């Protein structure tokens, strides 16, 4: 059987597992409600303001949800001893990890897309002109900007899930997986940026290096790409963000690196 078909068999198992796990369903619903709450609280009246309102919450909520969906995916099989059974079947580490990732992504992406779709719906169906910091730039507000934001958020979701799957493959116990997941989420949301700020204030790096260094954090890379591709020049940035190239490279490295770690650690070849 081809690697792709084997991966699909594994992916189907992962997707079904998600559908039959009540905790996951509650978390998915909670994600949609929280995102909706942000939109309603902001009273957003345009696509561009919606992007600006959502980018920061997404930086936090997407990694949280991705880790909830993925941090135990492989580890639970290992903990149960089932991973050893699976190893005796004719499938490669790449097929298995790829299948786990795709199956979990198939469950995760609809949740993110539903939340963003409902947010866009709020813009479409909300009457009146809501006031926003960028509303005077109405000529550049268009659904295509929001679609770019959605596309970048989908990519960011995939990267966050890849990191979660790597954690699930590397951890030796459920407790260790949870501990690593918590540390990584904190690092992604706060740690990387805080470290760069500390290095800047300490004189270890200069302001010129900020654009590149911030791309090392997937959150900063995502933020930079959103500002570059979905917001454009209508928003004056208060802090340096990665360039298009650096941001793309940063996310790609995290994605490939994380899945590489998962493949290397899932079992001995």
């Amino acid at each position, binding site marked *: 059987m081809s690697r792709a078909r084997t991966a699909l068999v594994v992916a189907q198992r992962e997707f*079904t597992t998600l559908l039959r*796990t009540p905790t996951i369903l509650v978390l998915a619903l909670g994600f949609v409600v929280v995102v909706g709450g942000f939109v309603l609280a902001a009273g957003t009246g345009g696509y561009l303001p919606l992007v600006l309102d959502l980018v920061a919450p997404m930086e936090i909520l997407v990694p949280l949800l991705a880790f909830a969906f993925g941090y135990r995916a492989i580890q639970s099989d290992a903990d149960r*001893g089932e991973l050893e059974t699976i190893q005796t*079947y004719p499938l490669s580490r790449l097929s298995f990890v790829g299948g786990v990732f795709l199956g979990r992504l198939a469950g995760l992406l609809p949740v993110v897309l539903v939340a963003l779709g409902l947010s866009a719906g709020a813009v479409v169906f909300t009457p009146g002109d809501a006031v926003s910091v960028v509303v005077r730039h109405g000529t550049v507000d268009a659904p295509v900007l929001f679609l770019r934001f959605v596309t970048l958020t989908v990519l960011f979701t995939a990267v966050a899930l890849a990191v979660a799957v790597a954690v699930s493959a590397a951890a030796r116990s459920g407790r260790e997986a949870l501990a690593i997941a918590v540390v990584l989420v904190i690092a992604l949301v706060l740690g990387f940026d805080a470290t760069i700020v500390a290095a800047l204030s300490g004189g270890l790096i200069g302001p010129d290096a900020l654009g590149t260094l911030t791309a090392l954090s997937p959150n900063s890379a995502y933020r930079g790409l959103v500002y570059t591709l979905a917001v454009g020049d209508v928003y004056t940035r208060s802090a340096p963000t990665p360039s298009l190239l650096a941001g793309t490279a940063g996310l790609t490295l995290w994605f490939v690196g994380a899945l590489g770690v998962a493949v290397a650690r899932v079992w001995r070849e």
Partner: protein
Amino acid sequence: MTDERTEDTADGTTAESAATDTVADAADPTLVVEDLVVAFGDLVAVDDVSFTVAPGTVTCLVGPNGSGKTTLIRAVADLVGIDHGSVERPESATRPVGYLPQAPAFRPQFTVAETLQFYADLTGESVDVDAAVNRVGLGGVPDRRVDALSGGMTRLLGIAQATVGDPPLVLLDEPSSGLDPMMTRHVADVITDLAADAAVLVTSHDLTAVERIADQVLVLDRGRIVAADSPAKLQASTGTDDLESAMSELVASESGQVATRDAEVDG
């Protein structure tokens, strides 16, 4: 000290050569293990072990707790690295080796039939899941969720899983551990049936069942094969009436004490 231990069996042949000869009359053994050594740091769990398993036979690994049975069967399944020696497994089959771990467990969100279907799909071959379920006696509960199965039923599901894809070599690690006498007897019957199509290697503490199903018994003590023969010949060579007495005789004469070893090595 391992150096001081002899491998001579009661009739003067070495245990390892006996292990190789007992079932090696078959032209092409399904499994050939030669000079196998598996160590965890300073602890040698499997120490220079050689044996063969012929197709259509049941070989049972017996020995005290910590003697290296589980490590040996996991090495044969290619689940632990080996430090020396070789393990020749079947190569032609889609799924060369079927494996039942000591404590089989499955995703609780799935039913018995769904679990077996997943493993069948991994082989890429058309598998009659209903037949696999019926073969182990779970025909009445194909739609029951795995987390609602008893320990015995989970073990039977594990055995069914081990046979998915018709592997020519089936490895079963304590398949009847913790089961009631009726279930133990049923598992023994299932193993006998499996041997019609495959070579079966089983670890077990249930010497009554071993006596009934084994074509070859390998007695392990502190990682080494100290005796290898059919149950009847082991009893004859030790002058005992049953396999339990024979094993006690063989292990006591080897070590002079009860073996103790980290449960992680051989639980």
